[in-house]
Each structure stands twice: as structure tokens, then as C-alpha cells.
């Protein structure tokens, strides 16, 4: 299993970081690294290195699970390895 890095942009609000990291761990990934720059004007970003605990995890699904959290503006990074295509209008790809 390889580590992949997600770049997450989100609103600076109470519990936001806890919510993000908790979701990553609950969805079957280990957090391997984190970089949290100083927030600016209510906005924060997080670069998080994640590694799936087993082979059945699709980083694209994780990305979408993060993106649906309230306050998350954008999720970038991670290589999808399955052939599902999601037809819709996202800004997370």
C-alpha cells in the first residue's frame, strides 16, 4: 500500500480538523503525515498523507466522502484506481 496525499481546503470552524481526520481514519486509512499551514481569513488547508489499511479502498471514494462534509470547499490529489466514473458536477477532481 502506498501513501497518497490529499490537499483539502475548508472553512475554519470549530471541530473542522477533528472532523476531517476522524473521517479519514474511520473510512479505513492511516494518517501518515499532515501539514497545516497558518489559516487565513476563515479559510484553512490541510495536506494529509493517507495509506489504506487494506487493498479494497478507493481513494476517489474517500475524496468524495471528505468533500461532502459541510465546510469543505475542495479536495485534490490521490489517484483513483478503479473504473467507476461519477457523472455529475463536482469540484473535487
Amino acid at each position, binding site marked *: 500500500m502506498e501513501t497518497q496525499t490529499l490537499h483539502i481546503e475548508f472553512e475554519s470552524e470549530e471541530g473542522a480538523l477533528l472532523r476531517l481526520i476522524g473521517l479519514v481514519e474511520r473510512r479505513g486509512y492511516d494518517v501518515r503525515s499532515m501539514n497545516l499551514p497558518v489559516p487565513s481569513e476563515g479559510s484553512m488547508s490541510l495536506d494529509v498523507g493517507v495509506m489504506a489499511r487494506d487493498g479494497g479502498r478507493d481513494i476517489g*471514494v474517500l475524496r468524495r466522502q471528505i468533500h461532502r462534509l*459541510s465546510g469543505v470547499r475542495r479536495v485534490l490529489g490521490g489517484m483513483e484506481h*478503479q473504473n467507476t466514473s461519477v457523472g*455529475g458536477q463536482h469540484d473535487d477532481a
Partner: protein
Amino acid sequence: MNAIQTSIDPDITPAGKQAPTGAELVVSALRGQGVDMVFGYPGGTIMPLYDALPGSGLKHILVRHEQAAAFAADAYARTTGKAGVCIATSGPGATNLLTGIANAFLDSVPMVAITGQVPTSVMGTDAFQEIDIFGMSMPVVKHSFLVRRAEDIPQIIAEAFALATSGRPGPVLIDLPKDIAQTRVEKPKPAKIKKAERRAPDPVAIAGAEALLKRAKRPVLYLGGGVAKAGAVEALRRFNMLAGIPAVSTLTGLGVLPTDSGDFYGMLGMHGAKAANTLVQEADLLLVCGARFDDRATGKVDSFAPDAKVIHLDCDPAEIGKIRNAEAGVQGDLKTALESLAVGILDISPWRTRAQELRNRHTFNYNAPGAGIFAPAFLEELSRTAGDNFVATCDVGQHQMWVAQHCHFSRPEAHLTSGGLGAMGYGVPAGIGAKLASPDDCVVTVTGDGSIMMNIQELATIRRYGVALKIVLFDNSTLGLVRQWQELFYEGNFSEVDLYDNPDFAEVARAFGVEAFTVTRREQTSAAIKRLLNTRGPVLAHVRIDPRENVWPLVPPGKSNAEMMEH
């Protein structure tokens, strides 16, 4: 996205009157959201909110355990389509709500849960009844708020309702410290929320789905709870009236197509219909609508519908491809997606004939041996007799599966069940919520002797408010579903399932002031149903059944849906 204002007006305080407290702002914001009924239980830190309730116009239903408040609010939401509201104090009140919040989360039910919190000055000091419910609830809420400033309350309430009801619905928690609730606010800020717009599906994705559908020879429509949540039931029915695709449903998708519809072949999965599971296994295409490939539906995923391509329609992009790859993933509003799919009449006559053959071959047998009451036959007759306004709220266990297999449902709101969480104790408080939400419906709680004991105190709530709920309690003096698994998969090692010392449930109900009667013999079935349905007020039918009776058919754990055991 448009910004709109809610009905909260910051200048409502008449001259000479004191400025509203945070608690009063909560109440007025709830009224502004159209809330007319809330379920809760008071306690120390939430007392300011309870102080603001009398005369507010909000009907408060005092339950006897906070878990029941959440379950009742859940059922109220499922019945009305609006967010259910439940209230509890901090500490144990909040933790008692959690199971009900988790239930709403896993079944995508809109809910706003309001908890008291210790004053901000002592937060983090292990104060009396202090618990970090904001942190504890994170895995089971769509979002949560900890109120730090009273003037933010109108905005937070507006956001909570918008989040709970938009997109994929879910529960939102608002943790309200006592001092914030007591603070007077001279100039509350008006709420501005972004109006959630239903996201239209991508036309290219729709075209891809249409192409797959037109090529399919053995398509199956796989319906989940998301169809009703999206308000897409009529669109789905119209779509399939033309397309004529054999349909199956998950536990929470029951009623999307009426049980008696010619195109409906039953529930799929572990305790599904043999015909439904066989159709899915033989399908060359699954059109999945608002379902999430739950393991109870799919059995062993690797062998689930092995020859089928998948079209997955869902408002939640995170569900598409989570368990099963989709050749066509269509994310967006389900109703719009179904209305956009133009496939006309499909040329699948041989497949429809095959489906009919399967249905005819695998009908349920209601002629059980013996003279005792046969629960499946009882339920089938009950739902048929009650008619189209029959609503079942279920507890969890064998009776839950019998309801799913044997009751007739005319609409999805007719079947309220704890699908994802599988929470024993849901049935009675859910029955209260459903009956209060829709008094003209014939609401029947179907429970077991294990489940009812998890919220039996709510008989007092039924009595207090005169809730004309009908309760069918199947009593086999055992934890039936666990016993069944121990019999089949644990070599008959019946460990801690014997409830031989149950109380006399009819006596218990009468002690709470609820009419009750007991039946034991099969020939009493019709009379019991008649009495149940004709009683004007609340009534409990205590129905004794054979503890050796199992739920059939069954897909053994870890097996493919093709490996159903029928007896």
C-alpha cells in the same frame, strides 16, 4: 447559490420588553423553520430552553428516556418529510440521544438534535454532567455546532435545518451551553443561508445510462431508501410503468413500488425473497436507485450479481463506487435523473416471463404445522386487513424481517424500520412519532419480547398523550434472531437468549393504562386483528409464538445470495 433570509427578524422585541435570551431565540428560530412538535426530556443545562417553551406554540412531547425522543423524532421526520427535533440535557441526556442520532445517520433521516451543555466557563473541567457530545457525535452526524455566541443562534438553527434536509438528509447536532442560552441578545443577527439547489445530473452520464439500459436483456431495478428521501417515488413509478423492469428493493426501499405491483419481486438480501435474489444474480444490468449496496442486501459482494453492469443513481457521489463499481454513475437529484431517462418500452419480454416464473415458484407458505399462531400469516392478514393507511413501525429481530417479507406496503412511509443501525427499542417510540405526525394513519408497532423491553417505559408516553398506537408484541420468550443464528451457525449453543422470566406483557401494559390482551392459538388470529384495528385508543396485542420458529429464507453469513437456505 442564492442567499435567502429566514423568517428570523432581529427587531422583533417590542419596546419595553426585555431582549430575548438565547433560549428564546432557539424557540423562535424553530418556529421560523415551521417546527410544531419536538420530543425531549429536560434536565439541568437545558432548563433555560424548557423555560422558554411554555406559550411558545411548540408542542413538546415528554418522553421517558432520551433515546425515545430521538427515535420518535426520527419517525416524525420519516412520516412528514420534515426534520424531526429532539432535545436533551448535557451528559447522560446527550449520550442517551446518541443511539437515535446514529439511527438517523445510517438511514439518512433529517433530524436536528439540541443538547444542553455546561456553562462555557466550566467547559473542559469535567463539570457535573459535562460530556463532549460535540466530539462524541461526530461520526454519526452530518454536521454539528457548538454555540459560542447567543447572537449566532438564528444563523445556526437555519444552517442546521438546511443541512439536515438538503442533499442526502441526516442528523445535525446543536450543543447549547447553559450560559449562552441565558444570555440576552439585544440585536440578534438575521439568519442568511445558502439555498441548497438540487444538482441536476450530467446529461452525458444520463446518455451513458440510457445506452446501457437499451442494450440490456435482463435488467433489474434495485430500489433503496434514497428514492423516497429524494421525493422521487412518483417519478420512479412513472418511469417503470413504461420501462417495465422487474424490481427488487432493500429493507428501507420497501413501498417505493407497492408490494402488490406486478413489477415488484420483493426484498433482496439476507432475508429477502428467493425470486428477488435469483433475479439479481441472473441480471445483466442493475439500475440502482438511491441504494448503497449494504452488506445485508448484497451478501458476499464478490459474487453479487456477477454478470451485471451497474447504473448507479444517487444524490451522494460518495456512494457511487463505494462497494460496487458502476459502469454508469449518475450523481445528482434522483427525481430529475429518473425523469431524464428516456428508454421507452424495453424489449425484455423473455426476462419478464422468467421473473414471473420465479415468483410463482418461490411463494411464501403460510400453512405452518401446529396450532400456534404463525407470525408471518398474522402479519400478512393484519396488513391486508388494515389497508392502504397501514403503517408499520418495527423493532429489530425476527419480527422485523417477517414484517418486511409479509406485510403489504402502499408507500415507503408505511414502513418505518431501523435499517442501517438495527436498533432494538426503535419500534414503540417510532410508533409514537409516526402516529403523532399522521393521526389518521393506522400505525402499528410490531415488536418482540426482547425489543419492547428496551423502551417499554414509553407506554407511559402513549398513555399521557392518548396516542392511539396499536402494538403487536410477538413473544417467543427468547431473543429469536440470535437464537436462530446459534441454532444454525453456532452448533445449537444457545447462549444467553432465554427470556423465560419475561413479565406478563399484557399486565404490564394495563399497569401503564394501555388496553391489552393475550392470544396463543391460531384460530384467534382474525379476532385479535379485528380487536386491534377496532380499538379506538392505544392497545397492545400480546401474541405468543413458538420459539423454534425461524425466519426463512436466509442467506448464511459470508455466503452469496445464490446460496439461500429455504428451510
